[in-house]
Each structure stands twice: as C-alpha cells, then as structure tokens.
C-alpha cells in the first residue's frame, strides 16, 4: 500500500458536508482572488469552445441532430440496450446489469476477485465517482489508481473532482507541487508544470505496468455494433486496458447511441464543447475483448430510469458529460465545483442531483440566476435553466424550501394581489427609504444592503406621474 491508499476517501467522497450551496459558495467567494482565478480559467475554456463552434457552419444543426438522436435513443432505450447486449456479447464481451451503485460496485469487485486482481488502474469515469467505487474497492483491499492526471491529483488529495472534464481545475500548480512532494517525493517548491507532469508520468507508468485490471468509463456505446467509444487526451484509458488482460468498462445506460454513424454527430460536438479541441487526442473504439483478454461491460441504472420516466426531466439524460454548462455557468465559475456537493456539479448536476435526493440537494436549483447560458451552450440542447425552474416548483410543492421563503412569497401574493395594498406598501417603502436614516435601512440583517445600496426612492410612483401627465394633456 502506498501513500494514496492511506488517504481515507470515504469521508470526503461519500458524505459531503451538510451545507447548502450558498454557504459553500460563500466560503469559496470569500477568497476573491481565487474565485476570480477560477472564473478566468473556465471562461478561457468557454472562449475556446466558442472559437471551435464558430468554425463549424452547421453547428446549430449538429446540436439539433444530437438532441433528436438522443431523444430517439431514450424513447427506445430498452430495445437498444438489448441490441447492444446481443452485439457486444457476440463479439465476446460480457454484459452485466446493475440497478444501482451498490450493485455496480459489487459486480466490479466480484470480477476483480475472480481474476485475483489486487492492483487496478482506472481512467476517468464519472459513473464510478457517482457510485463511489474507489472507497468500496479500497475497503476490500484493492488498490485503485486514477490515471487521468487531474483525477489522480484529486485522488492523492482525498478530494472529489470539482469538474467532470477538468477534475482538478480548482487546484493551482503550487498546490499540485505540494501534493506531489508529499506523496511521490518530488522536489519541494518546484512548480514547473513540465517537471510535475513528467514525475506524474513516471510514477503512473509503474502503476500501469503493475496493474492486473483496467477500469474505464464509456463515452458512447453503439447499439448496432456492440462497440464502445472512449475519449481521452492522455491515452491513459488505452494503456490501462492494453497491459492487463481484464478490461471492465462501466457506463450509465443513457450512453447508448443507436448507430455507428451517429458518432459522426457526437464526436464532432463532444471535444469542441468540452475543451475547445476539434477532437480528443485519443478516440478509441473497442469491439470485444482483445486476443487473450476479457472485456466486461457494466450497464448501470442508478436512478436513470426514474429520470427517463419523468416528462419534465427526461431530456437531462441526453447529457454527454462535456462540461460546457459548467464552463459557461457564471455561478459555477465563481462558486467552484465542490459547492454543489455532488459528483456532477454545475447546471446539469443541479438537475440530476435532486432526482437522486431532493431533500439533500434542495438548494441546487436555486444556485442559478436563470440566465439560460447553459441551455444555449449545451451541445444536446437540454433546456437546463427551464429544468432548474421546474425543480423549484417541485421543491416548493414538496415543502423543501425554507419557511421564510414560503412565507415571503405568500405575503407577496397578498400584497401584490390587491392594488390598494400594493400602492400603500409601495408608498410606505418609498417614504421609509427617504425618511429613515441609512443605518436603519442598510443594516446587517438586510442581505441586499450589506454590499449594495438600496435604490434612491422617488417621491412619486409611476402611476401618480402618469395620472398627472394625463391630466395635463387633458387640460
């Protein structure tokens, strides 16, 4: 066991602190320089995406096509999953079905045990993060090493990823240097990215060579061929499944696309939306196990069927996990991925998380200004901000919003529902703002006014001015 596995992941990965998004966001924004740096790093990626999208004249048509293909695939999901299973099996793969994260973890563990695999390398897979596979396997004495550089950095630090494509985007190179120094004894104070990357490469290479199994995620599973597509920039998935004989590919059931040709739409959208690259460095197709090896594919539901059967939220399953909604979200960029307390953060995470546990994630649909940028940037056209609005309706219906909010909305309805009450209330507010001393209107309990002035109250309302104007015109 090396240092990685002495780190206790279970606490940080499985049970996020019982704080709401605003509280966690306030902690992140308290360090303004850092929040600013984080915002800038992600905005840079968003701009790269814009340049790539602009270079494709049919960009908007591609988005529409992708959305239609996903809608079709989801409408016929059982048929396509079965077709995929038949085709994959025919090529020699073994397909497993997991209803939830627990079953998924058990299936993976049993496979490793059967094959006496103690050392495992894993390429980036948000599904295994979602199922908390690492702590489960570690508790059974298996060494799992995340081989995506960003994932490995957060693994060493005992943190969950803060972004689905850029897991360590919240960490500065100086901090990476400290982490490496602590765990793999790199030179203290050497922040040179090339040096650090070489050290990581050297260390991970030993892990690859010693691995007895490779676990990967899946970007697309093609029903008609039974093939898998895995996209990486580091080639770590390829190496991880080429050296050991056992390849376990874990995927959510929504990763299915019907035809091989459909990839011509999704591959063009994925990397451009994700990182502003025309294509990932490696786009690897797997058709059955390699000679002498085994390929196991674990199909995981874990709440997806429930989302699929929900009329309002089913489109959330179109998601191809590109992360573009995170890069564009002005809230995510300034509050950091950990403020969402969910494997998938940002707009899509705020739609998916409450479907798993509405009580725990009640604040996420409100971690949003409803600006709609996510909806327009999404390569598969998920109406994200409308889904977040719909979630708010669900939260209110299930009484999962704070009582103070519920009461103030009720009050609002009463005052605004009566023109006399509204006019009187308005008059009082304006009069009070004009007459009361500033310390009485701008006190600490008035959250609006802690860092903002209230409007300068006019003497007369619009309706009064309008009446006067009408009178003047009539006279």
């Amino acid at each position, binding site marked *: 066991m090396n240092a990685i596995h002495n780190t206790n992941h279970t606490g940080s990965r499985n049970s996020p602190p019982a704080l709401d998004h605003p509280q966690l966001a*306030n902690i992140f924004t308290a360090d303004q320089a850092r929040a600013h740096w984080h915002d800038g790093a992600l905005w840079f990626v968003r701009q790269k995406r814009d340049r790539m999208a602009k270079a494709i004249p049919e960009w908007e048509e591609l988005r529409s096509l992708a959305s239609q293909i996903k809608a079709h695939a989801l409408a016929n999901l059982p048929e396509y999953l079965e077709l995929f299973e038949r085709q994959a099996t025919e090529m020699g793969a073994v397909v497993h079905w997991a209803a939830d994260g627990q079953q998924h973890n058990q299936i993976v563990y049993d496979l490793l045990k059967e094959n006496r695999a103690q050392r495992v390398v894993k390429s980036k897979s948000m599904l295994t993060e979602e199922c908390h596979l690492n702590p489960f396997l570690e508790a059974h004495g298996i060494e799992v090493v995340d081989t995506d550089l960003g994932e490995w950095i957060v693994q060493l630090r005992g943190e969950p990823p803060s972004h689905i494509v850029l897991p360590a985007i919240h960490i500065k190179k100086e901090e990476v240097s400290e982490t490496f120094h602590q765990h793999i004894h790199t030179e203290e104070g050497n922040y040179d990215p090339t040096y650090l990357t070489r050290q990581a490469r050297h260390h991970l290479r030993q892990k690859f060579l010693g691995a007895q199994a490779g676990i990967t995620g899946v970007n697309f599973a093609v029903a008609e061929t039974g093939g898998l597509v895995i996209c990486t920039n580091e080639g770590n998935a390829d190496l991880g499944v080429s050296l050991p004989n056992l390849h376990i590919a874990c995927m959510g059931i929504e990763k299915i696309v019907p035809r091989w040709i459909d990839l011509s739409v999704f591959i063009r959208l994925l990397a451009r939306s994700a990182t502003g690259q025309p294509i990932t460095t490696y786009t690897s197709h797997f058709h059955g196990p390699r000679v002498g090896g085994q390929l196991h594919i674990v199909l995981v539901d874990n709440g997806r069927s429930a989302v699929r059967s929900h009329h309002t939220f089913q489109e959330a399953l179109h998601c191809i996990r590109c992360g573009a909604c995170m890069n564009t979200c*002005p*809230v995510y960029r300034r509050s950091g991925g950990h403020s969402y307390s969910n494997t998938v953060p940002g707009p899509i995470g705020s739609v998916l998380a409450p479907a798993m546990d509405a009580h725990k994630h009640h604040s996420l649909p409100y971690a949003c200004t409803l600006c*709609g940028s996510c909806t327009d940037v999404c390569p598969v056209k998920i109406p994200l901000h409308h889904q977040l*609005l719909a979630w708010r309706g669900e939260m209110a219906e299930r009484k999962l919003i704070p009582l103070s909010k519920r009461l103030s909305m009720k009050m609002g309805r009463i005052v605004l529902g*009566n023109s006399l009450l*509204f006019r009187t209330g308005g008059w009082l507010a304006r009069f009070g703002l004009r007459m009361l001393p500033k310390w009485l209107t701008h006190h600490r309990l008035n959250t609006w006014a802690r860092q903002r002035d209230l*409007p300068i109250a006019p003497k007369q309302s619009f*309706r009064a001015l309008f009446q006067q*104007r009408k009178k003047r015109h009539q006279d």
Partner: protein
Amino acid sequence: MRVGLFIPCYVDQFYPQVGMATVEVLERLGIEVDFPEAQTCCGQPMANTGCLDDTRPLADRFLQIFSGYDHVVSPSGSCVSMVRHHYEALFHNDARLHHLSEHTWELCEFLVDVLKVEKLPVRFPHRVGLHSSCHGLRELRLDACSERMGNQHSKVRRLLAGIDGIQLVDLKRCDECCGFGGTFAVAEEGVSILMGVDRIEDHVASGAEVMTATDASCLMHLEGIIRRRNIPLRTMHVAEILAGRNWQ
C-alpha cells in the same frame, strides 16, 4: 390599436422615470398608451421561487386586466418573458392567454417588430455599454447571444446604434449575467456580488460612461454596487436613452 402599458411593480414604485420614458417613446411614434390602474405584478418572483400556488392568482389577475388590449408593451424583457413563456404552465388552453402571450412585447421588440422603427430621432453623445439582460437575450432573443452560432436578430443593439452621437463600447464578456437573478441576489449574496462587480469592471474598463439594459432589475442590483463603491459609471434603462433623456 389599443396598447396597454405594463409597468413592472418595482419600476412603478422605484423607477418611475423608466415608465415615463417608455410612455414618451411610444407617444412620439403616435401610439396612445393606456395604463390600467389595477395592475400590480406579473407573478415572476413567486414563479421563480417555485411557488406556483402563489403565482396563479397574480397571473390570473394579469390576464383579466390585460387581455382586452391589441398589444401589451413593457420596459422589461424579464416580465414579458414570464407572460409569454411561463404563463402557459399555469393555464391550460386558455384562449385569452394565447392572444396575450403573442401580443405582449418588450419595448424594443415592439418598436422593431411591430412598429418597424429603424431609427429614433434622438441624440445621446456618450459612450454606452449595453448590458444584455439575460431574459431579454435568451428567452426573447432580443439580440445575438455569444453561445449560439449563425445569424441572429439584433433589436436592442440596432436601435441603440442608430442613435445620434452614441458610441457603443465593446465589452470583454458581451453577455454574461450580472448576478441579480431575483431572490438569488439575496440567497446567494457572495456569488451575486462577485458577478455584479465583474460586469461593472468590464464596462468601466471598456470606457463606458453609461451602462444600459432592458431590465431595471439588473440595473437596480448593479447601481446598488456602483453607489456603494463610488464607481464612476452611470446606469440608465434603455427606454431612457431611446426617449432622448440627458444623462445627468
């Protein structure tokens, strides 16, 4: 043409000059507007909180008050979007709503789409930063947004660009949200303030003297930060510029 003026509740009480500017712009173009006195609020604050039971009575009220008009015009993209896109979830197959949602307009789009205005005979010799309020931008498509590719309409920007003497500045982030977001401004204070400060700094760095927007709510939040920090930037609603108001 019977045109009903819909003045958002907080504009009525705190930004009457925006309402008056709207009236002037329309009257100069020969449109006589009617302001139904019973109006209060479209219900958006409740709807955006998810409290649909508290929204329905207000939306119902709005429908009763405004369904008799040929057109309803408002100096707010956000409130118009509420009526046009979000009332549908509250009423099922109400014929009145069908008419209302198709004939409720944000001021600039009413000028461009209905009145076919190309140019307004006013002068505003200042450097102006246009803050594209999100709901006007992405729900009503009043201007081109940076996420979408291909040809897009430009209504607010075109109207402003046609004004004598005006100089529209180029922002680094042409359409990022200001962080108002209704109750978000209070519930997520930390992020809201950072977003507002970033927008203001972008306008200041771009040399803007005046920051304008289609929604007074964004400006209320931004102006609040500007005044607290004594930043040399003035906020004006688009209607005020279109009405040829002086900047002081």
